[in-house]
């Protein structure tokens, strides 16, 4: 049921509809300056529009900043991963470079020596502290036998004390049970190198009168039949002449850093046999 008021409203709405159509048409077809209705609406909206716009801009900035933060975080994760990859790549590169350097020195060592050498790789260290031994990846199947000496480009390393089919145990020079016949290269004075469990070892049975000086090079004497003569062992670091002893106390620093061994050579048995023949 329509009342007069309703009819008036309807008429007004229809009029407005028509008016809006005119306004719309006018605006669509001509780019005129704002009319009165536009200006009035703008005037009413502006006081709210401005602070709202500022508020929303602030909110948008927070959203944007938060988004940037998350993006930075994810980028950071990616970059961290990349850095780790680069560090790993660099490590591989350095490792290759160092391996190359080591192997080159090994090759030079092999070419410079007439000994029949057999390359081997360290695959294990003795877990106990009682013995200073290492395990290499060559065994009886490769012709390895007990008492074969091991060398590297730095000098003598030790000898095989136990050989299984595919691996062997090596007694290192600084093992406390190790005894090696050595001589002072400069004076040819002969003594015995005793392992101390450390890189600094002792030479015993050097006469007090023997001319030994700090810095003298110590080589194997070849006596005993296990190690060939002339292999570099180390350098003298201290010489003491105790009042109560017939022998000098000489300390030698081994040239080979036993704890950093990776590749080495086993001297073939025929060399030992030749030594034995010579000794005979």
């Amino acid at each position: 049921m329509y009342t007069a008021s309703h009819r008036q409203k309807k008429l007004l709405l229809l009029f407005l509809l028509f008016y809006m159509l005119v306004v719309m048409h006018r605006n669509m077809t001509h780019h005129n300056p704002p009319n009165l209705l536009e200006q009035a609406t703008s005037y009413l909206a502006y006081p709210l529009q401005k602070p709202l716009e500022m508020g929303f801009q602030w909110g948008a900035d927070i959203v944007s900043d938060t988004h940037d933060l998350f993006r930075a975080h994810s980028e950071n994760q990616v970059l961290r991963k990349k850095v780790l990859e680069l560090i790993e790549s660099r490590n591989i590169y350095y490792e290759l470079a160092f391996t190359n350097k080591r192997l080159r020195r090994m090759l030079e060592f092999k070419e410079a020596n007439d000994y029949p050498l057999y390359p081997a790789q360290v695959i294990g260290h003795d877990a106990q502290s009682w013995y200073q031994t290492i395990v290499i990846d060559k065994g009886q199947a490769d012709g390895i036998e007990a008492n074969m000496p091991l060398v590297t480009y730095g000098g003598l390393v030790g000898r095989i004390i136990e050989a299984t089919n595919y691996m062997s145990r090596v007694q290192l020079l600084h093992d406390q049970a190790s005894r090696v016949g050595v001589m002072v290269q400069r004076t040819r004075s002969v003594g015995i190198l005793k392992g101390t469990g450390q890189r600094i070892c002792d030479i015993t049975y050097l006469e007090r009168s023997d001319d030994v000086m700090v810095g003298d090079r110590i080589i194997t004497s070849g006596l005993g039949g296990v190690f060939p003569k002339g292999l570099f062992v180390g350098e003298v670091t201290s010489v003491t002449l105790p009042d109560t002893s017939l022998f000098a106390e000489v300390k030698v620093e081994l040239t080979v850093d036993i704890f950093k061994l990776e590749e080495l050579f086993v001297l073939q048995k025929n060399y030992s046999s030749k030594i034995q023949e010579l000794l005979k």
Partner: protein
Amino acid sequence: MSPKLPLAIFIGTVLQSTLFWHLAPGGNSPDVGLVLTLLFMMGTQELDTSRFLALGSGLLTDIFSLAAFGTNGFLNLLVTMPFSQSWQRFISSNATVQVLTIGAISLVKGLLYYLVLFVYHQYPDFWLCLIHKILPVAGYNMLLATLILQCSTSWITSRRKPGYV
């Protein structure tokens, strides 16, 4: 009529024209003014007042959106004009129908808007417009209507006059 409602539609329209611009610059946004007006129409018997609000919210949207002045207001008024008492009764009985009606009206408004643009600016591609403008806006309007109905069912119900079914 409580002054809260025009204020709500006014703020809603401003929100649509400013907040959504920041959230989805250049993208589509729900027609908040139209949705609020239609919900008001469905929940009350103040149809004529609702049409004035539809016109006002349309004009506000034009101003805030810097769009062609009059177009939104004209279209809002046009699509709400066919609203009658019997139609209102049918729609108000079911929230799903309310939402679907809002979607349909939004669709009609979108199509009319395209028609206006086509007439005045030879807007070229109907299907592009339908897929990228008309349908998304209708969808957003339905979502917004659902959200508002879910959040303020009691408020909408309280606006109904006593004895109204």
